[in-house]
């Protein structure tokens, strides 16, 4: 973990209710699957957001407007300075990927898959990505993943774009390992429908974000774990659904 002050470089709408923000400064070396916590004026708790990309002093996050914190974030302008805790959580286990890793993101579960895909491609892996959304207006980052060299499948629940249905309707049968981040029903369905090993990134309402308050605990097969510190990434076999 690192406490730092970052400057907003860019903050713009990316899809329906979804924004992309780039922050510059001493970001720390965030690993795929880690998250940051942003202090916002007038709000007490920091807001946890997953890291989409992190390189050369730039940190990119993608967030969906769901409440007062993310609503306020949409108003941040270039040059605004933010108190941020970075490099939080355990991150994905890249060593487990095998030759043909499958990355599955649902909605704002998509962003952390980007840095993961980038790192796995660097390692010479054959990376497939499934991006799941509700509808066409919400789709983002299809081209960005393709530019990295991933094979990309987009699903929409209403069939307005890509494959009709959920991410589970587009699962390939030759993946070596999977990494998934998204809403709980999606993760549960993946846990039931996949027979390859993999790992899930969980989301919980957090107090501190660094393991002190026990606000975000989840019961696992190996006992109580803190999503913020012991997670957010957990192996498939560890989780109880």
């Amino acid at each position, binding site marked *: 973990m690192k406490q730092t002050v970052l400057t907003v470089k860019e903050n713009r709408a990316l899809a329906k209710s979804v924004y992309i923000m780039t922050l510059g400064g001493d970001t720390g070396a965030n690993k795929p699957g880690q998250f940051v916590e942003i202090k916002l004026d007038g709000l007490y708790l920091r807001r946890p957001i997953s890291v989409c990309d992190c390189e050369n002093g730039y940190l990119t996050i993608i967030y969906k407007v769901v409440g007062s914190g993310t609503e306020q974030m949409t108003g941040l302008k270039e040059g605004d300075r933010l108190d941020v805790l970075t490099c939080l959580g355990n991150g994905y286990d890249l060593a487990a990927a095998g030759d043909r890793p499958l990355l599955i993101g649902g909605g704002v579960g998509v962003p952390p898959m980007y840095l993961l895909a980038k790192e796995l491609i660097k390692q010479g892996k054959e990376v497939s990505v499934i991006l799941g959304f509700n509808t066409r207006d919400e789709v983002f980052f299809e081209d960005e993943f393709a530019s990295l060299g991933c094979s990309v499948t987009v699903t929409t629940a209403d069939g307005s774009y890509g494959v009709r249905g959920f991410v589970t309707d587009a699962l390939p049968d030759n993946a070596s390992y999977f990494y998934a981040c998204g809403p709980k029903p999606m993760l549960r369905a993946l846990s039931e429908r996949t027979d390859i090993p993999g790992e899930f990134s969980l989301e919980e309402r957090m107090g*501190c974000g*660094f393991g002190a308050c026990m*606000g975000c605990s989840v019961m696992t097969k190996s006992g109580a774990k803190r999503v913020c510190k012991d997670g957010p990434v957990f192996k498939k076999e560890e989780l109880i659904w």
Partner: protein
Amino acid sequence: MVNTKVSLLGITLDNPVIPASGTFGYGYEFAELYDINALGTFSFKGTTREPRFGNPTPRIAECTAGMINAVGLQNPGVEKVISEELPKLRKVFHKPVMANVSGFSVEDYACTAALLDKEEQVGWIEINVSCPNVHGGGMSFGTEPKAAAEVTTAVKKVTTKPIILKLSPNVTDITAIAKACEDAGADGISLINTLLGMRIDLKTRKPVIANTMGGFSGPAVFPVALRMVYQTARAVKIPVIGMGGVTSAEDVLEMMMAGAKAVEVGAANLIDPFASKKIVENLPRAMEKYGIKDLNEL
């Protein structure tokens, strides 16, 4: 040079700043960030006789100038605290630590306190009779003078170290509870634990917290806490530790002016992991600013 040293029940603290139970784990998370020996001491995570997972999530809610938590005393149980947590704590913290104990019956409190009393590093035992997040648990002991006194008597009987009763603000007259604890043999009083509160999500029309209600803390509660510390310090002869919304060195001084001998820092640690360290560092400057040479003159 100013003197930040204070004495708390026979043990000298380098400064009166004490991270509060439930906001500092067993210390080692924070020791990765800074040398926690800079602190006066800290009160470790509330420990019970049996392991507890605590309440369902969400356990946390945002509030204006504060937060609600309903963790529900998640801890590995006293045996594992002694065998696993305290050895890790010992490696990073070399001062007497405050053990925080919770229970669901008088016997629970006595049993857990007796076990922790034997631990060499434990300097004080803080008895939490005020957790708002456990059904039929802590708070019922802290809202009845007679029940608080019973816990005090039972713990005092099986311990050798100073015991500090941590009180709930969710009562009509906190001084009556404090006096009952003092009469039953408490060595000190700490207050306030969190205020019972709740939030409703406008979209779902349901409580934000899975457990419906939780404990409200943060800077918003500071004036309430200060008032209760003031009242309690005048009602009892034993030392009072003040806490509730403390965020700065100035807040520490204000608490001590209200009658606190030492000051716990809670929610602030969760928002800024360096909060307690910063308060310790800023304390001499704040003392100089207000012409305080020695905290013991307050």
